[in-house]
């Protein structure tokens, strides 16, 4: 797949990966063996019929291919961009034995993008808008006693509240709406999308794509209410009084972790959440055209080795950073970031300082001036199976920095959960939920990072799908539903 050249892209926030052309997609699809017992499907957390959609590509039925994906995955244009396919479907592809797997992710993105561009032609053949229209009509009919118009979905008047509009919330909403429930999706920010809009940068996931996928979810009949902080501006009890009968909590891993070292409150030290939210959601890279400021010096350090660290480092570069250094306590092999993103970062001139851990942040007049790091060596494997970093005594050294971004992970956001004292939490403060998302309170389900801690978009979607199915069972099992 073509990419924007590194020398050019470090000066803009436009998408880096340019996507397959039709010819490229066809060529790639032709390579697929369309296995009967498709191992790739087993690698997919949401069980997409991968050979099924690739077969449709071969037949040049791209929009149908997109529909095939949407049977299982409501957000294909997003997943085609941010899923770690190399660890999932593509890793499971049988062609790995003969060289390389089919680029399933690129194909998913291709059909999703094609579908987006060519929707209008599809409209007359029963496309999304058409379906949405009939849902709307059906909802109105529902309110009139003698409704008899046939509808594509069995409509149920039961109200369900979905809290948090990230990957988990969008997925749960879409699935529940497809089942015919009356779903309201609440978002604390002014824009729906959660981490897809505040966290993942424009150059990796254009916000117009997120908006399009959110529109798709709306088109299924989901009411999206932004600017609502459940737990503060409304409570769960308040929503119950409004008639909501089941709740899906998808509030994510929004609590920034700091390292707890000296100097963390110096100006110029950001949590990755702050750095990315200012940049992505608030568009600080367009300041002063947009009002939210961000202050980035010439030398920027990013602590961490995950995708959030890569996103932060690459944003820092585009915000004008001359030298951007990722400081990671283990080696490249243990980095949790996607290989593709690490490669992109390297191409963009981002330097990596491995086996290093910050010990304190130094400052002058309230501003960061540098960071002291200690060298690590790798010891025995820890609980995660990765070799544990062990500091080498006396190996401290200084690094001059103007800005430091702390991307060492996020915890569960306690805001909503703290207002639900009866809800059982894990000792890390996550929702203690069963496999199907059921929490310890009747009618309350949870999915995504609020259950798993910071994981991937697709994992969050998989857990949300299971929860949506469980909510359906729960409501059907009640006499009053």
């Amino acid at each position: 797949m073509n990419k924007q050249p590194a020398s050019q892209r470090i000066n803009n926030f436009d998408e880096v990966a340019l996507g397959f052309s039709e010819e490229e997609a066809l060529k790639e699809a032709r390579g697929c063996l369309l296995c009967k017992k498709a191992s790739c499907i087993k690698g997919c957390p949401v069980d997409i019929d991968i050979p099924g959609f690739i077969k449709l590509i071969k037949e040049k039925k791209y929009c149908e291919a997109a529909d095939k994906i949407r049977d299982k995955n409501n957000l294909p244009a997003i997943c085609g961009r941010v899923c770690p396919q190399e660890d999932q479907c593509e890793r499971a592809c049988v062609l790995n034995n003969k060289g390389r797997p089919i680029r399933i992710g690129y194909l998913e993105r291709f059909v999703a993008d094609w579908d987006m561009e060519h929707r209008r032609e599809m409209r007359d053949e029963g496309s999304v808008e058409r379906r949405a229209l009939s849902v709307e009509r059906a909802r109105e009919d529902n309110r009139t006693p003698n409704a008899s118009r046939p509808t594509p979905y069995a409509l149920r008047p039961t109200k369900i509240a979905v809290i948090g509009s990230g990957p988990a919330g969008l997925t749960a909403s879409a699935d529940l709406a497809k089942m015919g429930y009356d779903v309201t999706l609440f978002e604390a920010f002014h824009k729906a999308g959660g981490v897809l809009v505040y966290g993942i940068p424009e150059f990796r996931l254009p916000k117009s794509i997120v908006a399009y996928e959110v529109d798709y979810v709306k088109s299924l009949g989901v009411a999206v209410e932004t600017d609502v902080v459940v737990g503060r501006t409304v409570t769960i009890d308040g929503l119950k009084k409004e008639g909501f009968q089941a709740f899906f909590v998808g509030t994510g891993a929004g609590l920034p972790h700091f390292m707890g070292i000296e100097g963390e409150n110096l100006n110029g030290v950001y949590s990755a959440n702050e750095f990315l939210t200012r940049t992505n959601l608030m568009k600080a890279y367009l300041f002063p055209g947009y009002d939210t400021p961000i202050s980035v010096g010439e030398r920027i350090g990013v602590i961490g080795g995950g995708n959030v660290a890569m996103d932060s480092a690459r944003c820092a570069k585009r915000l004008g950073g001359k030298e951007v250094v990722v400081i990671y306590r283990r080696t490249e092999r243990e980095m949790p970031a996607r290989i593709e993103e690490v490669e992109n970062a390297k191409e963009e001139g981002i330097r990596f300082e491995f086996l290093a851990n910050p010990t304190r942040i130094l400052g002058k007049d309230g501003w960061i001036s540098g960071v002291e790091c200690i060298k690590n060596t790798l010891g025995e494997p820890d609980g995660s199976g990765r070799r544990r970093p062990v500091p080498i005594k006396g190996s401290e050294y200084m690094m001059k920095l103007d800005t430091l971004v702390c991307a060492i992970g996020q915890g569960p956001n306690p805001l909503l959960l703290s207002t639900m004292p009866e809800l059982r939490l894990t000792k890390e403060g996550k929702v203690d939920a069963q496999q199907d998302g059921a929490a310890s309170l009747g009618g309350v389900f949870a999915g995504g990072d609020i259950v798993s801690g910071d994981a991937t978009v697709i994992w969050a979607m998989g857990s949300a799908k299971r929860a949506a199915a469980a909510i359906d069972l729960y409501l059907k099992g009640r006499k009053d539903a």
Partner: protein
Amino acid sequence: MVMKDENGERIPLTIFDRDEKRGTITIIFQEAGKTTKSLAQLNAGDALIHVTGPLGSPTVIDKAGRIVMAGGGVGIAELVPIARHAKSLGSDLTIIVGARTRDLLILEDELRSLTDRVIVTTDDGSYGEKGLITLPLRRLLEKEKFDLAYCVGPDIMMKNVSLLTEEFKLRTIVSLDANMVDATGMCGTCRVMVGGKTRFACVDGPEFDGHEVDFPEFMLRQKRFVKEEKLALEKFETRCACGKR
């Protein structure tokens, strides 16, 4: 949290009053930077693109007592609802408010309607007592016993009031006006050290124990976007001037 338009920033403003019947809230703010100055240019009937609230933790005043309240500048707007609440609990209120000059003193009548004991100071002596509010506050503390002090105003005022009340071992609540982005505890930009622990003003606050707040660090943190704020304001004012021509 208020966002004026699609390109706007999210800023925290205090809800001064509400009218459930009319479904309205009243916000009082001071024109300081670009966002507040452009908010001030809105006309009746105009709309803000996004408003979210109320956020933060509810006020910690939950029982009656002898309370001395100190407010300064636009902070007085926040003092009024708190004073009303304290009075409704049966508290005995003494209120000291300060402003740079007489014209900048707001809500004096509202304050006087809540208690007979209102002391006014102005920096330039144009009204009330000349000087800072810590002068009459010290006099009061030397003579009388209070259960609680409450202060909301410029950072330096909250710092100095806290230092003063600490001498008299009087429990003091301050209400911090930190720069915020999401105001849901997600970004940590409003972090402040309170009693040696990192707290988020947006969700844990805005009220904190004034004797535990690390004011020197907080006041340095408040300056982190001064350069950008100045640039935004300059651009805005140039544009306004052009528009008028």
